[in-house]
């Protein structure tokens, strides 16, 4: 008697769960660390309108790409450079037809808000008073790779490289300046904007800097492909574009 | 030898050790059944335990005086101790064990030289051996010699004959007699067998459940 009641209960639970699956999907987005604040705001708005749930994993794009290569169950990859997206495309891990990029960014040199160091140009980073410079790992993480490209172009990389403290992602470089453990860092302008403990010492003009691009795509093995495409469309729509611009990203809109 | 054991009170597992006696003989035995508190009494005299109250004085030197808050640490008491389990240091060879307590650089020599002690107790041939590779009787003699070589003012021996067969006992007793006669160091034996220490001692004190039952001076 008791057993059949339990079985009926379990059956109901199963049906209920099955029904729920059809109602609201959960979309997992692996996104570059520099997108943390903007995407959080966009997702909140999206969830109010569409009732799908958006789950984020923010980290350096290179680590995320590796995790996807190892089979991490993600729906969307939102990278901070084309190289990491190419890496996945070459391994046929993305749905190439969904790949697009609308965001760009600027590099800035930051110092602590109360710093008295006189840094007005990239060359000033070679001064002896600048002992340590934090960069997101220049070997792999986009922010660091962009910074290295820029410094190499300015013929400063060889002198600056010994001073580099690599961090796991661009927010780590930001934190290092905030805590005072490094004299300066190179991060995105959008990162400098969210912190009150740092100030921008130099902004790399768009024309001089590397071509920063944030491609996004739905992954081939996405658990929720339909819901993922919906969210991707939203990310490319005007409403999201406004929020990105709010945070300081350069938004290239097809229609605007 | 004058050993004052005044107002000693030590809480033990089942009873309180209460001793109030003055020992003036050269060789004294404390006899009693096992668990009477004999070893604890030796520990107090050697300074290895702190009693609730006591005045322990050897000759003119105050060793423990709880009333005045005085306590002389064991290393300064110049009292040799041969415990029941001998406690020969297993990681040192016999020679190093013997020389452990020697204060002067050329082996000992303030009162008894190494050569003299080794000869009297016949342990010279054992010098290089490991303490785990010598016989029970040899261990006894080594432990005895080790304590002697510190030139003690008093020698405490806890059950020196326990666990030895009759033949071995018969062989050890003469050595103890030699220590008494040759080195003239005052000795305090503990034994559960009155008979075996009878011949060696001047005075016998009976201890039972922490209390002194009788004192008998044999050479009076």
């Amino acid at each position, binding site marked *: 008697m008791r057993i059949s009641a339990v079985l009926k209960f379990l059956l109901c639970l199963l049906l209920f769960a099955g029904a729920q699956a059809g109602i609201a999907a959960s979309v997992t987005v692996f996104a570059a660390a520099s997108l943390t604040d903007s995407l959080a705001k966009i997702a909140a708005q999206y969830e109010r309108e569409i009732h799908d749930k958006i789950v984020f994993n923010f980290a*350096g794009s*290179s*680590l995320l790409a*590796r995790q996807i*290569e190892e089979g991490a169950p993600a729906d969307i990859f939102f990278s901070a450079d084309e190289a990491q997206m190419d*890496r996945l495309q070459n391994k046929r891990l993305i749905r190439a037809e969904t790949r697009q990029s609308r965001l760009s960014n600027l590099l800035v040199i930051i110092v602590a808000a109360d710093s008295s160091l006189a840094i007005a140009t990239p060359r000033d980073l070679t001064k002896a008073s600048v*002992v*340590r410079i934090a960069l997101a*790992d220049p*070997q*792999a993480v986009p922010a660091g790779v962009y910074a290295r490209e820029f410094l190499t172009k300015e013929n400063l990389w060889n002198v600056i490289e010994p001073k*580099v*403290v*690599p*961090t*796991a992602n661009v927010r780590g470089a930001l934190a290092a300046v905030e*805590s*005072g*453990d*490094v004299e300066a860092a190179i991060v995105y302008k959008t990162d400098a904007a969210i912190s009150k403990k740092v100030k921008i010492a130099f902004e790399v003009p768009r024309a001089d800097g590397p071509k920063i691009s944030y491609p996004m795509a739905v992954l081939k093995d996405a658990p929720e492909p339909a819901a993922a495409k919906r969210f991707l469309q939203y990310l490319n729509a005007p409403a999201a574009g406004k929020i990105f611009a709010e945070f300081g990203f350069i938004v290239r809109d097809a229609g605007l | 030898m004058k050993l004052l054991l005044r107002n000693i009170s030590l809480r033990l597992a089942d009873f309180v050790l209460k001793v109030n006696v003055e020992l003036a003989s050269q060789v004294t035995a404390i006899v009693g059944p096992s668990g009477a508190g004999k070893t604890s009494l030796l520990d107090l005299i*050697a*300074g*290895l335990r702190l009693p609730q109250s006591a005045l322990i004085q050897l000759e003119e030197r105050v060793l423990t005086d709880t009333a005045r808050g005085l306590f002389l*640490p*064991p*290393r300064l*008491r110049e*009292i*040799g*101790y041969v*415990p029941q*389990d*001998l*406690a*020969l*240091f*297993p*990681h040192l060879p016999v020679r190093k064990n013997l020389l*452990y*307590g020697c*204060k002067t650089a050329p082996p000992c020599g303030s009162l008894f030289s190494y050569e003299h002690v080794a000869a009297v107790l016949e342990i010279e041939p054992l010098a290089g051996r*490991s*303490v*785990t590779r010598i016989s*029970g009787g040899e*261990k006894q003699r080594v432990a005895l010699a*080790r*304590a002697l070589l*510190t030139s003690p003012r008093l020698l405490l021996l806890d059950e020196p004959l326990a666990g030895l067969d009759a033949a071995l006992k018969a062989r050890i007793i003469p050595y103890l007699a030699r220590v008494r006669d040759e080195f003239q160091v005052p000795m305090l034996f503990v034994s559960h067998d009155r008979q075996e220490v009878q011949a060696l001692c001047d005075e016998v004190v009976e201890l039972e459940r922490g209390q002194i039952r009788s004192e008998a001076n044999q050479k009076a």
Partner: protein
Amino acid sequence: MSQEWQIVWFTVWVSALSTVLILPGGLAAAWLLARHEWPGKSLVETLVTLPLVMPPVATGLILLKVLGRRGVLGGFFHDTFHLDIAFTWRAVLAAQAVMSFPLLVRSARTAFAEVNPRFEQIARTLGAGEWRVFFSITVPLAWRGIIAGMILAFARALGEFGATIMVAGNIPGKTATLSLSIYESVQLGHDAAAFRLLGISVALAFAAVWSGEWLMSRRRGLHETAS
């Protein structure tokens, strides 16, 4: 390839240095905890065990706050001696020392507790002061547990990751340890290098534990009973 050997060499010598540096404090703590009762003992016991049970990155974060340029210790060294601790090899040393300390203390404490106090007492009656008793009686009789503790500590230091990455970062040529490099190689997709380093880690850990076992089995049976 030579860069890999540089990483191995760096990891081994900093781990060895860390093990040597924690020895005096570790033995002192072990002895105090083994032999005596004193007010505040439980607190010290808990503090000593903390790095063993806390998440390593949490310990690393605490170290970063203390050893960073604005930290209590880091600030002092930076302002007074112009010496940085966080993000240098000294931070690697600190992380390893803190994380492996409890292992040494636990092993040594058990070893000290197993030394028959009678030996120490008799040594005192033979005229030895406390330091002499400790070094000539207690330590030699406890050496097996002490060595085991040192080997555990060394192996733990070799493999330290969570605290190290927090307080020292993974700076090529300056703070890159074996475990940090394995992590980095995996991230970059350099699988061959990752597996080489992995193989070296396993070999090192194996060698450390094996030599410890050998050391101790050689002298087995020598220290059993007194009589």
